[in-house]
């Protein structure tokens, strides 16, 4: 069981839950935890949420949760959960979409897909290895950008698709090849996270930029069709 120690809004549709675990977290940047809710009659509902906080040896982790329309678990977390509550969590989960902090990495995220990439960026900054990481994040508008106060920096590129801040240098529009940092080291691993449509578009841009498909790791989420 984890105890909720803080809840804060990232955007109007995303909240970060800071959880205290009974023991130090052993997660790697990019991994997720399962949150399981149990009703008095035994009914349960579980969902996976990426860890946004970097591995730092502490017993606290942060999960950022997007409020989904009709989301049984996300709406409960957003509307009911408050500091002091306990939540059943399981993790960390996943051994593929992880960055261990010592290899070149190109991170490409769309919308809430930035969450596991934020753990990677935070790890790089915390360990003084920002030189290894480039993050390109796509958001619909400034109000939809997660971690807006923390994310900007020399290693990050922000792409707005619908609306941008005044005097933002890049015209609004979908992610394109010109948004990718150059040069990309040929041995970099690319981590792409977003909706299936975003992930396919981004992996297409990466392969056009001559990143080998076996160097691209993808995490897709969200319903389609």
């Amino acid at each position, binding site marked *: 069981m984890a105890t909720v120690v803080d809840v804060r809004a990232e955007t109007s549709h995303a909240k970060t839950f800071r959880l205290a675990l009974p023991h130090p977290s052993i997660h790697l940047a990019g991994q997720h935890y399962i949150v399981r809710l149990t*009703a008095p009659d035994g*009914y349960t509902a579980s969902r996976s949420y990426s860890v946004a906080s970097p591995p730092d040896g502490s017993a606290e982790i942060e999960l950022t949760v997007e409020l989904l329309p009709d989301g049984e678990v996300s709406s409960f977390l957003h509307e009911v959960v408050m500091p002091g*509550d306990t939540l059943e969590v399981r993790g960390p989960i996943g*051994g593929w979409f992880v960055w261990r902090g010592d290899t070149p990495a190109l991170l490409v995220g769309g919308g809430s897909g930035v969450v596991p990439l934020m753990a990677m960026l935070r790890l790089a900054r915390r360990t003084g290895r920002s030189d290894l990481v480039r993050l390109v994040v796509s958001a619909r508008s400034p109000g939809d950008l997660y971690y807006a106060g923390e994310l900007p920096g020399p290693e990050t590129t922000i792409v707005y698709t619908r609306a941008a801040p005044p005097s933002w240098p890049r015209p609004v529009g979908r992610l394109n090849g010109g948004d990718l940092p150059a040069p990309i080291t040929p041995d970099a691993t690319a981590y792409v996270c977003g909706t*299936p449509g975003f992930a396919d578009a981004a992996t297409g841009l990466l392969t056009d930029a001559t990143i080998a498909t076996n160097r691209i790791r*993808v995490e*897709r989420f*969200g319903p389609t069709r």
Partner: protein
Amino acid sequence: MKRFTRGFRGRGQATRDSRLPPGQYDVGSAWPVLTAEATPKLSTETWTFKIRGLVEQPTTWSWDEIHAFAQSTFEGDIHCVTTWSKLGVKFSGVSVDTLLAAARPLPTATHVLALGYTGYTTNLPLQDVTGGKAWVVWDYEGSPLPVEHGGPARMIVPHLYFWKSAKWVSGMELQDHNEPGFWERNGYHDHGDPWLEQRYQGD
């Protein structure tokens, strides 16, 4: 005593479908896409399906050759470890029984490793892909299987969590031991029975 979550009642439990395994929800008409790798572009001109390893007759079938087998259809439910289930779906292709009958497993074969064009692998006991439990499919609800869902052809092993159903399948290797596949090496359960909630290692 079972601990419950303060304030959580769940939704629609009175009408919960008995086809849903524990911890799963019905996605309705949606079909989420979850893959770990870039979607490959495969041509049916060059596509093949291969059975290798512990068989009397290692065999490779072309797209046309595999279509020459008697067609077999699965109608039922699929369950993803990320907790969605999709009820009442229909896939058509060829039964794995039919392919194995041609390749003839050796008595020493106990497991199969399903292989994908992207390098994806997933391990299954032989008994989980025989006896009408597994298919290689290229048709979903009467149309070609969409590429994002594994087209032109994928395996389906619908009685197990859906990561056991390899997308963009290229073949199967029969083995005399259990060799963990891609997700199984990355924290997921070796067997993956949704009714037993075998989601992660240790379940």
